[in-house]
C-alpha cells in the first residue's frame, strides 16, 4: 500500500477540527449512539481543558497537587548511575496518590464529568489500577462510580477490588469471554451506549475515540511538564533520553509530551515482549503485547491505531507478566510518533522485566510496578549491550509494585532467577 493511499485512508472528510487525527491514526470508530456524547465531550475538552473555562484547569491543578501529591520528584538513582556510568534520574509517578500515574487522568476526567453536569462515571479496568484511581477520584469528588472488570481479573486482583469497593465504587464483574481487559472495555462501551446522556466514561489510557487520546495525554502531560523543568533546574540541561513503559501509552505520552519538540531528547517506549515476539495466528494469541514493534494498523475500541491482529483483522490476545501492559492496542498518537521516527519502540521480555524489578528494588529501595520494570529492563539491556543512551537518562517510574508482589514471587521462583531474594523465611515454621 502506498503512502498516498494510507494518507487518504486516514483522512477524515468533514470534521470541523483535525484534533482527532494523529497522522493517519485516531478518529472516532464508535457506535452512532455514542457520537453525540463524543461531540459533547470534545466541546467540554476544548472549553474546560484547552481554554480553562470556569477555571477548570486551575481546579485540576490544585487538586492533583493537594489530593494527588504533585509535583512528584525527579530524583537521581545513585546506584544505577554508578552501574551504567551515566546519570540516571527517576520521575516518581509511583508517589502519586494510589501508587501510579493513573490518577492524573482519572482525576482530570472525573472533574470534567462534574463540570459537564454528568451524574455518574463508569470505567473499565484490567489489573485494577485505573479502576482504583477512578474510584478514588470519584470518592474525592462525590461522584457515583461503577467499574467494569473481567471476572478473571476480579478473582485475581482481589486487593484492587477491595480498594475500589472501600472507596465506594460498584465493581461489575464481566462474565464474557476470557473475562479480562478487552472484554471489560467492550462492556464499558456498551454500558456507556445505554446511559450516555447522564454518564461519563473515564477511559484509562490514551486510547479510544477522539477526544480521549488527546485529553488523557493532556492530563498526563503534567509528568513531562514537571520533569522538563526539574531537569533544567537540577541538571542545568535537558536529558539525553526519556524511557517509559507503554501499555495503552498514557504514562509514555505523559512523560514524552513536552519533550517531543526537543530534538536532542531521545524517546524510548518500552513494550512488553512477553515470552516471545512470535505469534500463534492459529490460536489468535500473541505471547507479548509489543504492539508498536510487531503490530500493524487497524481499528479497535474506537480508534485507528497499531494493533495486534491476525491477517484477517481479528484482534489477538496479548500476553505479558504485567497485567497493565497486557493490551492488544496502543494510543494513536504514540503509534504516530513511532511512524514519524520521533519515538523509538523497544521491547523487554518477561524475564528481563522481573530481573529489573529486583534490581531497582535492591539497588534503589524503590519497588516498581511490573509495568514500570519494563522501562528499567530496557535501560539495563541498552547499557549492558554497549548502546549509549546518553549522559543523562530520565526513566518514568509509572507506578509502585505493591500490587505485584505475589506475581513477582511466583514468577521469580518459577524461573529460578538468581537476582531474586529467597523467601525461605516463611518456610521454617516456628513453634508459636
Amino acid at each position, binding site marked *: 500500500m502506498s503512502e498516498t493511499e494510507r494518507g487518504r485512508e486516514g483522512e477524515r472528510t468533514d470534521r470541523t477540527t483535525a484534533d482527532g487525527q494523529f497522522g493517519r491514526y485516531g478518529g*472516532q*470508530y464508535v457506535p452512532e449512539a455514542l457520537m453525540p456524547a463524543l461531540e459533547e465531550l470534545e466541546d467540554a475538552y476544548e472549553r474546560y481543558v484547552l481554554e480553562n473555562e470556569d477555571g477548570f484547569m486551575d481546579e485540576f491543578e490544585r487538586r492533583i497537587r493537594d489530593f494527588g501529591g504533585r509535583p512528584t520528584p525527579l530524583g537521581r538513582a545513585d546506584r544505577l548511575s554508578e552501574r551504567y556510568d551515566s546519570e540516571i534520574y527517576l520521575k516518581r509517578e509511583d508517589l502519586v496518590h494510589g501508587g501510579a500515574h493513573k490518577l492524573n487522568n482519572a482525576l482530570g476526567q472525573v472533574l470534567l464529568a462534574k463540570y459537564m453536569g454528568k451524574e455518574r462515571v463508569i470505567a473499565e479496568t484490567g489489573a485494577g489500577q485505573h479502576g482504583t484511581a477512578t474510584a478514588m477520584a470519584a470518592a474525592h469528588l462525590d461522584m457515583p462510580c461503577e467499574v467494569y472488570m473481567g471476572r478473571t481479573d476480579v478473582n485475581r486482583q482481589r486487593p484492587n477490588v477491595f480498594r475500589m469497593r472501600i472507596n465506594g465504587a460498584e465493581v461489575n464483574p464481566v462474565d464474557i469471554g476470557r473475562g479480562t481487559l478487552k472484554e471489560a472495555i467492550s462492556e464499558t462501551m456498551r454500558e456507556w451506549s445505554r446511559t450516555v446522556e447522564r454518564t461519563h466514561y473515564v477511559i484509562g489510557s490514551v486510547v479510544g475515540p477522539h477526544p480521549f487520546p488527546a485529553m488523557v495525554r493532556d492530563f498526563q502531560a503534567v509528568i513531562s511538564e514537571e520533569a522538563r523543568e526539574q531537569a533544567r533546574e537540577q541538571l542545568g540541561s535537558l536529558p539525553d533520553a526519556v524511557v517509559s513503559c507503554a501499555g495503552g501509552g498514557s504514562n509514555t505520552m505523559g512523560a514524552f509530551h513536552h519533550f517531543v519538540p526537543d530534538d536532542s531528547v531521545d524517546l524510548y517506549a518500552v513494550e512488553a515482549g512477553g515470552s516471545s515476539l512470535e505469534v500463534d495466528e492459529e490460536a489468535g494469541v500473541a505471547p507479548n503485547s509489543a504492539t508498536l514493534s510487531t503490530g500493524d494498523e487497524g481499528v479497535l475500541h474506537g480508534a485507528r491505531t497499531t*494493533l495486534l491482529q491476525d491477517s484477517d483483522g481479528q484482534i489477538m490476545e496479548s500476553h505479558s507478566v504485567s497485567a497493565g501492559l497486557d493490551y492488544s492496542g496502543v494510543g494513536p498518537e504514540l503509534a504516530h510518533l513511532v511512524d514519524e521516527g520521533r519515538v523509538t519502540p523497544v521491547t523487554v521480555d518477561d524475564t528481563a522485566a522481573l530481573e529489573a524489578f529486583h534490581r531497582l528494588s535492591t539497588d534503589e529501595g524503590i519497588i516498581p510496578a511490573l509495568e514500570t520494570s519494563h522501562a528499567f529492563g530496557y535501560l539495563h539491556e541498552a547499557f549492558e549491550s554497549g548502546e549509549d543512551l546518553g549522559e543523562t537518562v530520565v526513566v518514568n517510574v509509572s507506578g509502585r509494585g505493591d500490587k505485584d508482589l505475589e506475581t513477582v514471587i511466583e514468577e521469580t521462583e518459577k524461573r529460578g532467577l538468581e537476582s531474586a531474594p529467597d523467601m525461605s523465611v516463611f518456610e521454617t515454621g516456628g513453634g508459636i
Partner: protein
Amino acid sequence: MGDDAADAAGASGSADSRTGTDATATAFDGGGAFVPYLAVGDPTYEASLEYVEALARGGADLIELGLPFSEPMAEGPTIQGAVTRALEAGMTPDRFFEFVSELDVDVPLVCMTYYNLIYQYGSSDGPRSFVERAAEVGLEGFVVPDLPAEEAGPLREACDEFGLDLIFIVAPTTRGDRLERMMERVSGYVYVQARLGATGAREDVSDQTGESLERLADWEIPKAVGFGIKTGEHAERIAAAGADGIIVGSALVDIVAEGHEDDRPVEETADRLAEKARELKAGATRGAESLPEPEHP
C-alpha cells in the same frame, strides 16, 4: 490527500449521487419488511447455511449476515455469544464470502460487521478489496456498527465504485447536523436504533421509536427499526408506527443458541427459526397494513 480527493469523497455520499443496488431499497417496497440477522457460522458453517435459508423460507425480505469480529463492541450478550461460537468454529472473512456464494436464497443480503475486518481484507489496507469481493459474491451492502458517517468516506467511496449500499444506524441520540451528514451518506436503507443500549431482545418496544421515525420523516429512504424486537406483536407495533421494516437479531440468535445448547437436530432449529420468522413477518405485515396509504412522491 489533496482537496480533490476530499471533494470526491464528500460528493460520493451526497444525496443525489447516492448509488448502491436497487435490491436493498426494493426489499422494503411492500412496507412491513422483515429483516432478520444471524451471525454466520453460528454454531457451525453448515448449520448456519440451513438457518439462513430457513429465515428466507419464513418470509425474510432482506437478510443481514453477521461476519463475526473478535470485539463486538455494539452487541449485547446474546449476539456476543453467537459471535464467539462462530469464531470458535473457524469463521473467517474468506469463509464468510464462501458462505454467501453458497447460500441458496433469493432475497438481498447485507453484510454486518466491524470496520477492522473490512479494512484489513486483502493484500492492501483499506476497504476496497473487501467491497470488491463482497460485490463478487453478490452482497448488496454493509452495516458497520463502529463506523459513523464521519469515518465512512473510504468505505462509501468503495461502495460507490462497486455499486453497493452503505447503511447507517440512526440512534435515539442522533440529531441535527449529524442527521444531515448521515442522510448525505446513507444508501439502501437506514437502520433506526429503537433505543439506547447494545443489541438484545427486550420485552417492551421503546417509545423512542416513534420519535426517531418522526425525525427521519422527510428521508426518502426506507427506515428499518431494530434493537429489541422479539415477537410478532412487537413487529406489528413498530410497523404500525411507520417503520418500513423491522430488524430482528437477538430473538433469532436465542433460538440458535438454544438449539446448540440443547443439542437439537439442525432441522429442528431451522424449523423453529422459520416459524419465528413467519410470526415476525406476519406481525410486520399487519402493522404495515394498518398504516394509511403512503404518500409516495
